[in-house]
């Protein structure tokens, strides 16, 4: 199992660098993972997306529809890509400690 080591902390991750155990997430995780996603500093806009994803995940056990994420945060999809260069599923979900969505996506 790969280990992601940053700021003196160690995380068990999968091959794509997603947190193995989503339940251990806290805000430090998002900060620690940000650099690996090419994000220098997490702004309020980043946090808005991260918290929305996290809360949705706690309620539903999965990420929301991409369209719903855009509408509820008020960010168009290209803005989400600006904030999280690998996109909503791979970038934003990783920072929010969600598993990577699989299937025809």
């Amino acid at each position: 199992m790969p280990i992601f080591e940053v700021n003196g902390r160690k995380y068990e991750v999968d091959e794509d660098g997603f947190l193995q155990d989503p339940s251990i997430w806290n805000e430090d995780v998002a900060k620690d993972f940000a650099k690996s996603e090419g994000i220098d500093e997490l702004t309020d806009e980043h946090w808005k997306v991260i918290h929305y994803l996290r809360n949705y995940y706690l309620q539903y056990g999965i990420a929301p529809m991409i369209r719903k994420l855009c509408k509820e945060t008020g960010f168009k999809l290209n803005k989400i890509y600006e904030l999280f260069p690998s996109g909503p599923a791979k970038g934003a979900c990783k920072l929010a400690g969600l598993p990577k969505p699989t299937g025809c996506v």
Partner: protein
Amino acid sequence: MAETTPKLDELVQIDYRPPETPWMDTPVEFRRGTFCYSAAAKNLEYLGFPNPRDWQPSDEDWKLPENWREIILKAMEDRLKKFRSFRLFMDICVRCGACADKCHFYIGSGDPKNMPVLRAELIRSVYRRYFTRAGKMFGRLAGARDLTIDVLKEWFYYFYQCTECRRCSVFCPYGIDQAEITMIGRELLNEVGVNINWAVEPAANCFRTGNHLGVQPHGFKDSIDFAVDELEEITGVRVEVPIMKKGAEVLFIMPSADYFASPHYYTLLGYFLLFHHIGLDFTVSAYASEGGNFGLFISHEMMKRLNDKMYREAKRLGVKWILGGECGHMWRVVHQYMDTMNGPADFLEVPKSPITGTVFDHARSTKMVHICEFTADLIRHGKLKLDPSRNDHWNVTFHDSCNPSRAMGLLEEPRYILKTVCNHFHEMPENTIREQTFCCGSGAGLGTDENLEMRLRGGFPRANAVKYVHEKHGVNVLSCICAIDKATLPPLLEYFVPGVEVAGIHEFVGNALVMEGERERDTDLRGTPLVKAAQAEGDKEEPAHA
């Protein structure tokens, strides 16, 4: 794009010279970007598959069971007895080479082991060694070889560089179906715990929750409700989407990506507008909440287990028949395997359109109709009120998805619909469409990021044909009827043909449908201003959702 992804100029420098060493003496090299990660142990455990453990294909030691060779040979013997097609395909190839340059992975990689004839030979050589007299006596002289760890690794690499698209079999004078050979190859590997996560995790999710994504019933309802609300905002019309309504006439089953990802979502909106428009008595289900069947990419047994839930749910709800959405591989399973695996579904009725009275005779046994057949029939009978000018900002071409086209012969219906609901339609060159269509390069479970270089190589012929119509006719959208297409064609086109979008057919249907009581529409379903609205405001055609 991953750091390891080659630049376009590099990638298209494809070297077609074979290696200097004979193919049996050329071991596989696991290069990043060209193979998929192994299946996680938790997913194998969930499905009761053998040998769950922590390993990766790039590891030297694959942690196989000690008697792995016996397991594989026994499994091969079983399948030679069980599947006449497999036995036949092991025996009859004459190496004419008609298939050699038909594979998108060979065209995009130049690797001779991606020629279908040689991909099959990887397993035929082992068949000869253990199951034919000539192979047992003369070994390599008779084209036979021992089953070694290197052979097993080669199987993994190349059976997961085949999208089971079956383009090669269109050209084979014997009709050898390479997909069936790949399927058996994967099935044998599965016996010793060698499989990929992008196929096994969706299958495990589907087995647990009813869909590949793992969406649970309350999440399913949340997504459907969101779509209904948004449709009302766009059109002013409130549609109804019953969930698990007992006694509905039709059960509608779509791929789960339709209620999760973009651009799939806009197709979902199109389905719901259509059903409201014609007053269809239908229901969706949070249990049969997946059309796709990733079991097809693992083993016959897994395919059967996942296919079963659709029919079980249809029976439980007491519907008359099943309508299937814009899903690709589902149709290979339904059209070519379902009947003898789980069928016949004699507790359902022969599908009959309640709107036109058309009986879908060809679905007499499976009881399942493709939405394009259904919609084309509605159009043919003049049942839809359409304004195709609402698609005037789209210049459309159509990518035949491998399975609807080659596995069920759905060639005319999508085109008939598109030409009715859109004013601008252009075909790609004839050797790249219909039964000769080129795969997206990511089917059969290969659409994952770590495999991106290979996906781009495999998608190169398709992208090339899109580039042709983009430059010649100004095509700006590639339509398709498969959820894997909708997920994987956008990055492919971004790489090879920027400026061309991807959309489902029922998105265009939804754009064109004139709904009773609708408000004047100024955008299409994805928020792009319509041509007249854009002209009036001097606006640029930027989608509001982009």
